[in-house]
Structure formats: structure tokens, C-alpha cells
């Protein structure tokens, strides 16, 4: 590969790592800091992507859209929509054990996929939405990629800063207290249900934002781009490998897993065509196996959660 190709690839990877890091940060709010098992990351991601695409896209005759709003408003819309869907789900499921939340969020993601595939007037059905505007899209290709990378990095830094600040504030300590012993926290007068709901909506809104960043980068979206299982699962393994409960771990995990995932694609693309499709499934198998190994040998992740200033939480917490 010549230099410009390499540069392009690096920029492309950088943007996607940024978007996945955002998703891992969001999942860290759910799982790492609040202990909420959200197995429907792809659903909130999809809502953000489609809402922003519809709000900002050019008019299309056969479906809703063409509002041509500024991209920034599309992002806000994506966050609001993803948060709004999280709210009723959280209201219903957060008081139950986390297994139930996982089942419910898998369901949410499946319903969202169903709607996206069936409602042509809204989402373009299987054809999806194309022609989504990209900020700095009028620049030439490399410059546009680079500018978008800067934008994604800024958003990631801002969200990272906000989340870190929030977690070091009393709010964050309270969340961890609720996660580690909800009865003790409740006994001390904390409104456990309301706080969990806050965290659930907050994290889901960030997942929606990641979806919006993705769709404006990619300039189009189809139902295939949000395979619930793969999209959700990759984020989970990023967070577990990086270290749940640690924001830098989440970002590190996102970078590592994404590099492994796309490097393995480069490898399998070189295989003869008849083996290439099968190799795709082998990659999924290997990622699944990686999760098993991490859970078994290093469940705290590469960058474990920093212990609280006084006292440790019970050993073995994910």
C-alpha cells in the first residue's frame, strides 16, 4: 500500500475507533458504573443514526426526511431520541435483576431492527438512507476524513471529560455505592431507581450520539450496518477487555478490539473467494472465544477500575 492509501486507512480507522470508544464509554456508564446489563447497544446506536440521518438529510420522495437541518441539530435529535426510548424501558426493567434488563434490551434492539427493516416510509427499509451530509464533506477526500477525525476526537474528549467529571463528583460515588450495595445506598436515603434511570438514559443518549457520528461519517445507513448481535457484542468485549469501571480502559479496549477486528478482515480478504465468507464467521468465533478467555483469566480487564479512596468494593465484581 502506498503512503496516501495508508494515511487514508489510518484516518478511517481513527474515526471508527473514536465512534466505538464513545459507545464503550456509554456502556461503561451503564455497566461499569451503574451495573446495568444493556444488551441492546446496537438498538440505541441505530436510533441515533437514523434520527440524525432523517433530520439532516436531503429530501427523498419516497420517505420521511429532507428537513436539511444543521448536522449539530441532528446530533441533538439523535441523543434525545435514544434517551427517550431508554426512559420507558428503564422505568420498567431497572428494578429487576440485571438478567431481565438484558433480555428486555435485546428485545428493544430486535424491535428497532424490525421497524427499520419494515417501515420503508421512515427508514427506507432494506435500501436504507443515503446521501447523509457530512460536515466538511465539501473538502477533498483526505482533508474531509482528517477534519472528521478531529471532530470525532473533540466529541470523544468532551464526553470523556464530562463522564469523568460526573463520576468523580458526588454523583459518581453515589452510583458506585448503589452498584455495589443498593440496599445500603437505599438505606442512606438514595433514590436508587431514579439514579439508575438517570444513568441508563444518559448512557443511551451517548450511544445515540455515536450512531449519529457514524451515519454522518459513512454518509448512508442500512439495516445491515447495525446487526444487533455483532454491534452490541463488540462493544461489550471492548469494555470487558479494556476494563469496565475505567473510562480509559473503555477507550483502550475499543481501540484494541477494533484493530484486531479489522486487521483480521484484512487477512481474510486475501483468502480465496470460496473461503472468504466462511472466514467471516470464523472471525466472529474468535471474538467470542476472546471474551471467554478475558472473563476467565482477566475479568477486571487491562486497566482495572481504580479502587475508591476508602475501602474496596467486593472482590470479583465485573
Amino acid at each position, binding site marked *: 500500500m502506498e503512503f496516501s492509501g495508508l494515511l487514508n486507512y489510518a484516518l478511517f480507522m481513527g474515526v471508527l475507533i473514536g465512534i466505538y470508544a464513545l459507545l464503550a464509554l456509554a456502556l461503561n456508564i451503564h455497566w461499569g458504573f451503574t451495573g446495568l*446489563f444493556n*444488551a441492546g447497544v446496537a438498538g440505541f446506536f441505530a436510533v441515533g443514526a437514523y434520527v440524525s440521518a432523517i433530520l439532516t438529510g436531503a429530501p427523498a420522495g419516497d420517505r420521511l426526511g429532507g428537513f436539511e437541518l444543521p448536522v449539530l441539530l441532528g446530533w441533538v435529535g439523535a441523543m434525545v431520541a435514544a434517551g427517550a426510548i431508554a426512559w420507558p424501558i428503564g422505568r*420498567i*426493567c431497572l428494578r*429487576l*435483576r*440485571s*438478567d*431481565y434488563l*438484558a*433480555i*428486555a434490551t*435485546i*428485545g*428493544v434492539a*430486535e*424491535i428497532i431492527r*424490525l421497524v427499520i*427493516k*419494515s417501515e420503508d416510509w421512515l427508514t427506507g427499509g432494506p435500501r436504507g438512507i443515503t446521501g447523509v451530509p457530512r460536515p466538511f464533506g465539501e473538502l477533498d477526500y483526505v482533508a474531509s476524513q482528517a477534519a472528521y477525525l478531529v471532530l470525532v476526537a473533540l466529541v470523544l474528549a468532551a464526553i470523556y471529560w464530562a463522564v469523568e467529571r460526573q463520576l468523580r463528583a458526588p454523583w459518581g460515588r453515589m452510583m458506585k455505592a448503589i452498584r455495589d450495595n443498593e440496599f445500603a445506598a437505599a438505606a442512606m436515603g438514595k433514590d436508587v431507581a431514579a439514579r439508575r434511570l438517570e444513568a441508563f438514559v444518559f448512557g443511551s443518549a451517548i450511544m445515540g450520539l455515536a450512531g449519529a457520528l457514524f451515519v454522518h461519517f459513512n454518509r448512508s445507513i442500512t439495516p445491515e450496518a447495525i446487526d444487533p*448481535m*455483532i454491534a452490541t*457484542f463488540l462493544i*461489550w*468485549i471492548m469494555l*470487558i477487555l479494556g476494563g469496565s469501571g475505567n473510562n480509559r480502559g473503555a477507550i483502550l479496549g475499543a481501540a484494541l478490539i477494533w484493530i484486531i477486528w479489522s486487521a483480521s478482515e484484512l487477512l481474510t480478504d486475501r483468502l480465496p473467494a470460496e473461503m472468504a465468507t*466462511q472466514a467471516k*464467521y*470464523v472471525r*466472529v*468465533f474468535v*471474538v*467470542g*472465544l476472546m*471474551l*471467554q478467555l478475558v*472473563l*476467565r483469566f482477566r*475479568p477486571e480487564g487491562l486497566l482495572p477500575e481504580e479502587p475508591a479512596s476508602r475501602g474496596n468494593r467486593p472482590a*470479583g*465484581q*465485573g
Partner: protein
Amino acid sequence: MDFLDFINFYLVPGIVLGAIYAVGAIGITLVFSILRFAHFAHGDMATFGAFVALAFVGTGMDPWTALPLVMAVTAAVAIAIDRTFYDYLVKRPKILTVMASLGIALMIRSVVQVVWGVDPQTYSRGIVRPESFAGVLLRPREIYTLVTVVITVTGLMAFLHYTRWGKAMRAMSDNPDLARLSGVDNRKVTMLTWAIVGALTAASGFMLGINTELNSMMGWNMLLPMFAAAILGGVGRIEGAVVGGLIVGLAEELSVLVVPSQYKSATAFAILLAILLLRPSGLFKGKVL
């Protein structure tokens, strides 16, 4: 629509589908109540069973003859998965096992996709003519399915209530510590549970395959209805899982009368949310874990 059409096009398919869900939901409820975690690889284990049956059928075996073999193979695989991946997490927070099972689901599915591909397949080609029983149309495979489900459920109920090992399983479901103190070998009960669960998932996957078609996503699509059925019936209640399965299956088939057919599979989710909201212990007073 006259009454016979209603029976033939909605009620019978609903009951058949419900019976298939019921068999899967029993497995979910056993893992949930005895091993205490939500087993997300359940659906994909069913897919695996369905495709193993396809391999047997490929050698010229009759599908229904292959069923017991397939159940045995999948039972062994379920035990092996537990030994290799879940067993080490047993002393850790249960949620890690749930996560592991999500990964196992993907791993099993990718094995199926590598070995058998992603195109839909069937056990036998050609159209089966239904037989008419006073206007009620039943295909032989539907009759066999219902008979298999009845035999499986009554056999399992008898096993759980009248045998030593069955009682040990129920004891571990009620109170694992107490069961251990009374001399129940938790490891053996765990293995036995996986054997039964594996066999049941294989049966449900096979029956879905023979009544519709096989594809690598079939089990994943069954997961939500099976969980809905198990929670609707009440976690830990075999009879609850059966009733829950029938309700979910019937509701899916009947939903076509009121919502567009592409949203048929959303019915299970609606039932799940409704039951979590209104009565988390389920119809039969199961556990809320």
C-alpha cells in the same frame, strides 16, 4: 372468516409453535432456577441441534428417528460447553456467566454458519398434504410434534418428581446451600441439568426446523419468545413454561389478525414487558431472580 379457517390457519399453527416454544422455555426455566442465570446461548444451541439433525437426515435417516440421537449429541455438547466455559465462572458473580453465554451464542452460531452455510434448508422437500379430521387440517409432522412434546413434558415431570436425581434438581432449585448440606452433589446436578437442557433445546430446534425451515438465525429468533414464555409461566415452573409457551405461540399467530405480519415477532416482546410490569413472578408464582 369461518370458524374452521380460524382453527386451521391460526389455532393449529399457534398451538404447534407454542408447543415448540414450550420445550425451549422449559430449558430456560431449568437453567434459570437451578443454575440461576439467563442462558442467552439457548436459542443458538437449538439451531445447532436442528443442523445436527440435518446431518443425520443427510445420511438417509428419517428425521424423527434422528431426533433422539440429536438430543443425545446436543446434551453432550451442552455439558462440554459448561465444562469448558461456564464452570470456571461458577464462583464469580452470576452476571459474568450471562455474559459468557452471550459469547457462546455467537460462537455456536458461527460454527453452524461455517459448517452448514447461511442459506435456508429443509429436512425434506415437497409439499405435505394435510389430513382432514372433520374439517380440521393436520399435517403428520404437526401430529408428531405435539405427541413428542407431550411425551417429553410428562417424562420430564415424572423424572423431576419421582426419581432421586429429579428431586435433587428440585432441591438445588429451591435452595442450593441446603441441598449441598443434605448431600446433593451440585456438580453432578449441574451436569445433569445441562444434559436435559441440551436435549430439550435440540428437540425444540429440530421441531421448529421440521415445521418451518432451518437457518442459522432460527434459534436467535426463538430466544425472546422462549424467555417470554418462561417468565410468563413463572421462573422455575415447568408447567408454567408449557402454558407460557402455548400462550406466546398462539399470541404470535393470532397477532397477525391485528398487526402487520412483519411485526409478528414483536408479540413476544410485548408479552415480556407486560408480564415484567404487571406480575414479575409469572402466572404460576415462580421466582423473581
